[in-house]
């Protein structure tokens, strides 16, 4: 049926001048196998995929290299700075990621605490400033604090990535109000990153008006990651369209959907 294959018209997602059709970005961690990862990413429809920068395990040579499984001409690789606990480390990892030669983008993480993986916002703002000045396109993973988001924008972030809930928690969108407020106030794109656990989390997040979602564990740790990737793709598109379509008002009284006149006697 034509309707199923013709997506509704929407502006592309534009970050740092680059256009994307998909508003779902995915990570590449925690899959049972590279094959499962590849299939899930394909099912997700994502164009942007995140990767981590790590030492080569010399005992395994190239084995752990994600590029053995991901075609960098097909996917836009977004290196992250996961695991960095201060601005200096994050800057170092960002530079290493850039030196891989694919692009000048970085998903910037400066973690403040091991138990929650919440960002150290002071370090994050500082690293954003440094890296933006070096020509990086910084996508900054942050908490759901508006003020920090505004500071990141001022520091030169190309996109701001507030969390739905802590990384890997699957707790969903804990504070829709905060995310909605951030979206309303920023000019750069807002991509919600982390905490999305299932499709309805993705859907309700997009309904707040944000520009996209990045997720990893919600897909990789599902019972069937490939099917969940597909569900997430659909959910992001559903939530985006629902936002654009403007939902009906809530009413505390019922309103018939069938006519009240024309009843028989």
């Amino acid at each position, binding site marked *: 049926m034509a309707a199923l294959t013709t997506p509704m018209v929407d502006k592309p997602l534009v970050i740092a001048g680059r256009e994307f059709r998909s508003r779902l970005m995915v*990570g*590449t*961690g*925690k*899959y049972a196998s590279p094959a499962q*990862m590849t299939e899930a990413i394909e099912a997700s429809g994502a164009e942007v995929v*995140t*990767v*981590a*920068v*790590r*030492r*080569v395990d*010399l005992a395994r*040579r*190239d084995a*752990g*290299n*994600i*590029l053995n499984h991901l075609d960098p001409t097909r996917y836009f*690789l977004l*290196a*992250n700075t*996961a695991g960095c606990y201060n601005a200096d480390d994050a800057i*170092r990892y960002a*530079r*290493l*990621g850039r*030196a*891989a030669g694919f692009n000048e983008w970085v998903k910037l993480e400066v973690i403040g605490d091991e138990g929650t993986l919440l960002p150290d916002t002071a370090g994050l703002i500082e690293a954003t400033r440094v890296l933006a000045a070096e020509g990086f396109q910084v996508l900054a993973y942050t908490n759901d604090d508006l003020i920090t988001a505004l500071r990141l924008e001022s520091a030169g972030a190309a996109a701001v990535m507030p969390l739905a809930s802590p*990384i*890997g928690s699957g707790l969903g969108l804990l504070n829709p109000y905060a995310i909605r407020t951030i979206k309303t106030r920023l000019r750069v794109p807002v991509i919600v990153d*982390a905490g999305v656990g299932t499709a309805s989390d993705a859907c309700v997040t997009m309904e707040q008006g944000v520009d996209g979602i*990045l*997720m*990893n*564990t919600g897909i*990789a740790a599902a019972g069937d990651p490939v099917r969940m990737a597909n569900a997430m793709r659909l959910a992001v598109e559903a939530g985006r369209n629902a936002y654009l379509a403007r939902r009906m008002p809530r009413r505390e009284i019922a309103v018939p959907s069938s006519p009240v006149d024309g009843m028989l006697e």
Partner: protein
Amino acid sequence: MPTSTLVTIRLNGETRDVPMGWTLSTLLADLGLDARLIVVERNREIVRDRNAFDEVTLLDGDVLELVHFVGGG
């Protein structure tokens, strides 16, 4: 092999002796690594130009980090 012909480097967190005169290219070849997939940080500076790997000779005390992209979120 007399010890005077070796240099001691730190490679991905481990101490290792390599023959004096080895370049980055020699090392990568010895490790079985594809230079195109690797980023090399030497003494905290990235060796940006992969074509220069032939010309960078390993010196005693060099600290090398060979990194690449792995799965992550």
